[in-house]
């Protein structure tokens, strides 16, 4: 079982390396992290926090967009691509369970995400600590951001596999993935903010809004990292608007979402007729 999962993971790593996905993911994370750490290092003193914690707050806002995007870009092809190339029927005649195939792809894609995230955050941290050795006190926040980013990535990998199983072709899967990214990461927050403004402190703001934030894996990720770092002051928008949600709730959302999305992926993949 483990051997078959590893076999798929090795093959997916070959494909990702050759298709430059590893390079693209790492470059994206490193470039954006460095830009943010450079831009975010200016207003330090006024907030009374160490320099790295401020960078972590900026990286959180970046990762909310970038990690799901990279994860979806890597995963949308996973099932639809095999169907479209015609490689799925042959693969499914092998003594390998469908979940083992998915697990192998997940393992490879998560490994690439880990490399990209570590490289990006590592570069930002190295630059920050080099310019201000006191910033090492923010390493805890950076570690928290790192592992939650991996969980966030795994969630969107699972969502990508599920969309890939549902779509009729690769282009359809790509469209669904981009649509979902826009919806969950961009439009969702805008909609919530609009509703909060309209509601003006009513029942929606106190009851529905916190639940709606926790239900979205990207928002839960942002909430957890900003609340834990008590860096909400450095954040704006939704992050700042939801200071009241307890840490354990956003943590639970972060931990549960990968299970939910991967469960969905396994269920939808099982229904794909080769």
């Amino acid at each position, binding site marked *: 079982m483990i*051997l*078959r999962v*590893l*076999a*798929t993971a*090795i*093959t997916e790593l*070959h*494909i990702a390396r*050759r*298709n430059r996905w590893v390079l693209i993911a790492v470059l994206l994370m490193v470039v954006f992290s460095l830009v943010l750490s450079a831009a975010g290092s200016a207003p330090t003193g006024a907030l009374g926090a160490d320099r790295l914690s401020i960078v972590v707050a900026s990286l959180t806002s970046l990762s909310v967009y970038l990690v799901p995007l990279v994860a979806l870009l890597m995963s949308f092809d996973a099932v639809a691509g095999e169907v479209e*190339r*015609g*490689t799925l*029927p*042959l693969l*499914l*005649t*092998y*003594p*390998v*369970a469908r979940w083992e195939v998915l697990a192998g792809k997940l393992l490879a894609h998560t490994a690439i995400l880990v490399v990209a995230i570590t490289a990006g955050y590592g570069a930002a941290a190295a630059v920050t600590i080099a310019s201000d050795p006191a910033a090492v006190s923010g390493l805890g926040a950076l570690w928290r951001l790192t592992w939650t980013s991996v969980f966030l990535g795994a969630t969107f990998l699972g969502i990508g596999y599920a969309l890939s199983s549902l779509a009729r072709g690769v282009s359809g899967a790509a469209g669904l993935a981009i649509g979902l990214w826009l919806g969950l990461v961009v439009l969702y927050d805008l909609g919530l903010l609009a509703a909060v403004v309209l509601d003006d402190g009513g029942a929606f703001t106190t009851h529905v809004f916190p639940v709606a934030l926790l239900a979205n894996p990207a928002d839960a990720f942002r909430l957890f990292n900003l609340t834990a770092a008590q860096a909400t002051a450095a954040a704006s928008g939704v992050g700042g608007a939801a200071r009241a949600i307890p840490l354990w709730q956003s943590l639970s959302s972060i931990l549960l979402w990968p299970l939910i999305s991967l469960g969905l992926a396994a269920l939808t993949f099982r229904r794909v*007729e*080769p």
Partner: protein
Amino acid sequence: MTSTLTISHLTKAFGPVQALSDVSLRVDPGERVALLGHNGAGKSTLMKVILGLIAPDGGEISVCGAAPGQAAARARVAYLPENATFHSALTGVEQISYYMRLRHVDPAGAMELLDRVGLAFAARRRIGTYSKGMRQRVGLAQALIGHPSLLVLDEPTSGLDPISRRDFYELLDKLAAEGAAILLSSHALTEVEARTDRLLILSGGRMVASGTLPELRREAALPVAMHVTALNGYEPDILAALPDAIRVNGGLHLTCAQDEKLATLARISALRSKVADLDVIPPSLEDIYSYFSRRDGQ
């Protein structure tokens, strides 16, 4: 001897289309069986049911003693799809290593396997750069992994040049000699004629014929054609003696039923002094194939 593949009364419909109706067959170890039929006759559907990729509506199937698609069956069955395709970013050796790992076979033998199908020279090139025939050979190489008990090959020689075809059938002969059961579909009737033990003909989802070529020939009882060339000037005499004959480009052509063959030959040999040459033309495999696939109203 227990059979490797047994199918009885298999049916499968896709909506209103009856893809397979009441199909029964068996393939024994070491046997090479060819599955013939038009496009849409149900060959690929039958293969996908055997592989467990499509669930049948009715009937019983046993693949190496297990139900199709069960892990025990999949561990012993190899498949070569029609127009085998692979991920274009992988090299031949990477792709074969992957399949070997899935079957728990040491991938160190990948190169040797590719060598067996004549692909060692391109093993480290991306499959995206391969020709159709080369991809087909990668498909064949993966079907050889781990000594399968049953090989299901969907038009295995399409895209192969004549020499590769011969090599391919030599490989199959070796596998069959080692006890593997082989079920292959083909359009190339003359090709499977000499290379398989038994023929199955599917037409409109029904099994319309099954047997060795001589058996099918007997069953079809198609007329034998004879072509007689007369010695100069004797043609009218021969026509008078064989009133059924007709003049066809410089000779005389006549047909007779299988069981009248010897009697007809005797009549011709009685005219020995007037006959320059005689050709006996048995019904071709194409004739037999059309006979069976048309008989069913196709």
